[in-house]
């Protein structure tokens, strides 16, 4: 009697163990599967709905429940901060040339560090790498562009040593005048140029030019960040790319002058 019961116990334990192992195996399989196709977007969708949808909207059109956030700058200027509309596939903060889709890394970086000054929070500590990849993949489903186009190569950034030097700043000032940067950004760089009130973004909303004296760019404040902005433009806004109209050296001179306006160099 005892032996029989022992055997049954052993068999039960073995069965349980086996089932458990099988479950783990299945789960693992499911997980590997997830990265090839469907499961991926399920995770991405879940993350998106929990964390992004509230601002960016169910359809990714930037019309979430939070809506437009009003922000008053230190100068008293009040701005409307609108969440990105993913349906057009147009992004400002790219490392790729104007008109191109951003790279995977660009989007991952935005999810990671957020966008200071526009309420896009950082998710570095909130999401795992897999979750971030999944949500980026999900965001790409909102626009057909991601199916039709291939991302371009990122812009090469090689900062010359003289950026920020006095002569470079002076040359930059001349370019600032010649290229009519002041028409929007103003002579003093405070974003109050004569055309500053006329600018509309791709969605038809007024978009005021950046006030350099606030010192903090949304993309980031290193000379390299400024250089990329001049080279790639900010697609969807009034800020064009100067890749064709200024050669590399002159773009770096303009960076020098911008850094001066931002108070980063003397």
């Amino acid at each position, binding site marked *: 009697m005892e032996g029989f019961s022992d055997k049954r116990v052993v068999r039960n334990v073995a069965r349980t163990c086996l089932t458990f192992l099988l479950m783990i195996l299945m789960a693992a399989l499911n997980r590997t599967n997830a990265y090839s196709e469907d499961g991926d977007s399920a995770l991405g969708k879940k993350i998106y709905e929990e964390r992004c949808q509230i601002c960016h909207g169910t359809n990714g059109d930037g019309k979430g*429940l939070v809506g437009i956030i009003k922000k*008053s700058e*230190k100068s008293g200027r009040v701005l409307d901060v609108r969440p990105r509309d993913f349906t057009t596939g147009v992004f400002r903060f790219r490392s790729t040339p104007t008109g191109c889709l951003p790279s995977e890394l660009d989007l991952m970086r935005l999810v990671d560090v957020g966008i200071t000054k526009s309420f896009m929070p950082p998710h570095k500590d909130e999401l795992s790498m897999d979750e971030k990849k999944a949500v980026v993949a999900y965001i790409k489903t909102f626009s057909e562009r991601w199916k039709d186009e291939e991302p371009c190569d990122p812009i090469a950034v090689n900062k010359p040593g003289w950026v920020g030097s006095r002569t470079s700043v002076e040359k930059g000032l001349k370019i600032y005048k010649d290229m009519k940067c002041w028409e929007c950004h103003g002579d003093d760089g405070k974003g109050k140029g004569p055309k500053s009130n006329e600018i509309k973004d791709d969605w038809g909303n007024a978009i005021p030019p950046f006030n350099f004296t606030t010192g903090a760019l949304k993309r980031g404040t290193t000379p390299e960040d400024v250089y990329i902005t001049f080279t790639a433009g900010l697609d969807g806004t009034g800020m064009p790319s100067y890749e064709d109209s200024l050669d590399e050296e002159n773009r770096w001179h303009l960076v020098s002058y911008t850094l001066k306006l931002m108070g980063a160099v003397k």
Partner: protein
Amino acid sequence: MQSRFYLSLLLISSLVLLTFVAIATYSALTPEWKQYQTEYKDFLIKNAKDEATRERAEKIDIGIQQIYLTSMKKADRCTSCHRGVENPLMANAEQPHRQHSGNYLENHPVAKFGCTICHRGQGQAMNLREAHGEEHTHWDFPIMPIKYIQSSCALCHDFEMLKHEGGGHVAKGEEFFRGKGCRGCHKLNGVGGDLGKALDGIGSRARAYFPMKHVVGDRTIYNWVKQHFDDPRQIVPESEMRAFLTGEESDLLTTYVLTFTSEQMPRNYMLIKNIVMPRTDGESLYKMYCIACHSDGKASIYDEILKRTIPAIMNPSFLKAIDDNYLKKILKEGRQGTQMTAWKVDAAGLTEQEIDRIIEYIAKDRPAAKTEPFDVAKFKADVKRGEELFNIRCALCHGKKGEGDLGLNLKNPVVQAADPAFLAVTVRDGRAGTPMPPFGKDGVGLIEQDIADIVSYVKTLSQKKL
């Protein structure tokens, strides 16, 4: 040989000394004022129309002029240079000879009022540099720029009178001050917020009181006040002052603010024509104490200076959710951890009655419809689950520990003491017109149990350390 050397040394030094004595004597005998008075006298003699006037002009004594104001123990010697100040012949002359502009001297004869009561400067000084007391003379009250001069009128007169009788600027400045919410942050006569410095006596404070480092031009209190109004952070980099004024507006306010002096004029100088009672209706009080931050109260705006969202306190959805008692509690106790001041009588100094009037004004457009109640007691709240939900759903705006950023600071005592049902309703319905979205079935789609869990967690936030 040696004696000759010393002899020549003695000779040279005596010569040098003699030269100095000569220079000193010369400059003592020909002071600035003497030169000006001679010019003035010559001018009068030259332009005399008849013999009698010429004779009178020739009789003018050249000497130090002094007006002594007994009741104030003030001695003004300004007329030593400005001798033509009461002479209509000098209407178009160059300074210092020009006649005083306007008809101000008709009612303010120089002999009774002197000059420095209105114009400031150093009355006893005998040369231009020291008398006008501008930069580097270490005189705290240099001569007042003409565009702010009307601030002196308010030493003796009421604003109602000034409005109609030649004090338009300062009267306008006063009106402006009442409408810009300055006292939301600054105390005056003991009433007002405490985010900024008290304004009492600011117009008669010593120069050393003001941080002059970033002032452009002469480091006078006039320039400080004016430039600080133009761009507060240019003058005090860490300033939180919300002043966005045009150049003209800041001139008017500067003129008015300079009237806050600790000096009391003697009775015989005062002329108050109208006793104007301070306005105590809700709207005036709102403008005086609230408007600098909350503006018209209709839009919720994130402010980069205060680094938080300034709530729209006259927004219908806010008023719908909040009753007068809760409003009163917020007004009286403020919101600790934010810039919202406690307005009760022993803090910022508003009386119960004044607070009630402000509330009446804020709540005047409260919608009649009531919110659908939320029966929190029905749910067995799970704080742990609430925390998980909070971290995903709420922390983005309200901060990981509820410290607030775009969203409200949830740690502050007023929120912590609020009725859980009220918090639940807010989470469920959101606040239309603000970034706070509805999280209930009409919005994000959380079920009531989720909301109850979140609220139970929010209630524990006061224990979280930053």
